[in-house]
């Protein structure tokens, strides 16, 4: 193990992620404001750019309140259990081509993507610990919902990633990026749609934010948290959003590669641009759609995403056996199949005031 390399990346990840999170919080609040015909924060600094700093200072000097009825130790440990896996996601993201100056902490872990799927579901345990430790019914309902949601969307997410693994023939993220002569978003549009929706649900962001549905259960699982512990939850939530955006960029948008090979060959730059792009789409969706109901949520995962993701992997598997090189013209049949499947499958669902049934 190269200690200098390790030390450098620990510094980079622990420094860059909070900074990026603060930038994204600002971006989200401004962008969400513009989407909803309002200016967003605009008092602290020019364009409100110091707003996250002001929030950080505020949250740092807040009184720490622990409910007496709760379980103090579980309450204390929960933010750590949510936060640490969020940071662990970034360890395997490759920043640049081999031989470049900056590559990432462990960019070519041989089971990189499986590791990410495994690590990113740990934080649900933290969420449940937070709810259980708070001894609050709002928290607990939120945690129940969160468990059901994460459990349901985990499978479409993993199956959508499987399509990428099939096409690339490797689980290492570096290998996956190198396999993308044409980005997989064009080659596997169905896989990307499923991945994106399932990832949005895994992140618990609108329209799938049932666990912190403000109008129903106040703040969800972190209702009893204040001060720095709350900040850690918030940081973890946004770090996950950045992480999932980074994974989406790596798996489907060609990671560090410059599009069509043009432009400066600085991998980190392109990665950040792509992360930003994915994040903007998540933000756009958040600013547009209303929250789904619980039955719609579960029905959508099991009746829409799951069958389609199974069909997706079989299509990709058959294609990669028939044409092992996966030539670029496969994107036309794949796009057509994706469109037809989405339209036909969504036609199965009944609209109206009742339950979603097939």
């Amino acid at each position, binding site marked *: 193990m190269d200690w200098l390399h390790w030390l450098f990346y620990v510094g980079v990840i622990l420094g860059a992620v909070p900074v990026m999170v603060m930038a994204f919080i600002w971006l989200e609040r401004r962008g969400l404001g513009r989407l909803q*015909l309002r200016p967003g924060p605009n008092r602290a600094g020019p364009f409100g750019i110091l707003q996250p700093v002001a929030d950080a200072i505020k949250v740092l000097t807040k009184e720490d309140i622990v409910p007496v009825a709760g379980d103090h130790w579980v309450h204390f440990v929960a933010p750590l259990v949510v936060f640490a896996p969020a940071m662990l996601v970034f360890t395997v993201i490759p920043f640049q081509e081999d031989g470049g100056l900056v590559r990432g902490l462990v960019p070519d872990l041989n089971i990189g993507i499986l590791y990410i799927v495994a690590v990113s579901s740990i934080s649900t345990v933290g969420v449940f610990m937070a709810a259980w430790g708070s001894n609050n019914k709002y928290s607990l309902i939120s945690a129940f919902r969160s468990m059901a949601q994460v459990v349901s969307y985990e499978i479409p997410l993993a199956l959508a990633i499987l399509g990428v693994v099939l096409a690339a023939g490797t689980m290492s993220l570096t290998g996956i990026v190198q396999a993308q002569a044409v980005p997989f978003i064009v080659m596997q549009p169905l896989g990307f749609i499923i991945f994106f929706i399932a990832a949005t649900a895994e992140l618990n962001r609108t329209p799938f934010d049932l666990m912190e549905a403000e109008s129903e259960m106040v703040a969800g699982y972190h209702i009893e948290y204040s001060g720095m512990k709350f900040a850690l939850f918030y940081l973890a939530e946004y770090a996950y959003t950045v992480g999932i955006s980074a994974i989406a960029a790596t798996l489907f948008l060609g990671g560090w590669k410059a599009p069509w090979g043009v432009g400066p060959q600085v991998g980190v730059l392109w990665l950040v641009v792509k992360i930003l792009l994915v994040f903007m789409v998540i933000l756009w*969706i958040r600013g547009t759609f209303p929250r789904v109901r619980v039955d719609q949520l579960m029905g959508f995962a099991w009746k829409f995403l799951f069958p389609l993701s199974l069909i997706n992997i079989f299509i990709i598997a058959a294609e990669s056996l028939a044409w092992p090189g996966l030539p670029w013209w496969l994107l036309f049949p794949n796009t057509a199949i994706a469109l037809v499947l989405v339209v036909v499958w969504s036609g199965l669902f009944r609209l109206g005031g009742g339950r979603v049934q097939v």
Partner: protein
Amino acid sequence: MSRFDRFGLGLAKGLALTGKTLFSRPNITVQYPEQRLDVSRRLRGPELIWVSLKCTGCATCAKSCPQGSIQLVTSPELVDNKYQVEEFLVDHGRCMFCGLCVEACPFDALYMGRGYERAAYRRGDLILPKEKLQMSADRKPSAYCRPEMEAELPLQTLLVYGQTRAKR
């Protein structure tokens, strides 16, 4: 087209709408301390304005007040066919701004105000004596129950799709 509404077209429509607002700037938020909207000309703002020259000290306002929040003390001798008002106290903390005193005043000596920033830190600060009830630069009367004043007052600004515009 309605056939395709169930195939995700509604989602696309919603995204298009929010995407459009992202790049146009129809900002309907009023930046409050810097920008203010003109209120309705007949606003019953949370203050009473008393014109001492017109007042005869008849105490009709005090009698009409359902809350009993007006206290009026006059001296018995008449000067210029008016009682001299010695004390005129209005408890704005108890007042519910129904405007009955303004309607009851036979000499148009009371007005509802147009101000709306009348919060105070102490309840006692809300009880105003007659010196503070006078009309002044930041205590302007509204045209509530005084329709003859209406023409001089600025029109109300309404927030309609991005622009603050006056509308009759």
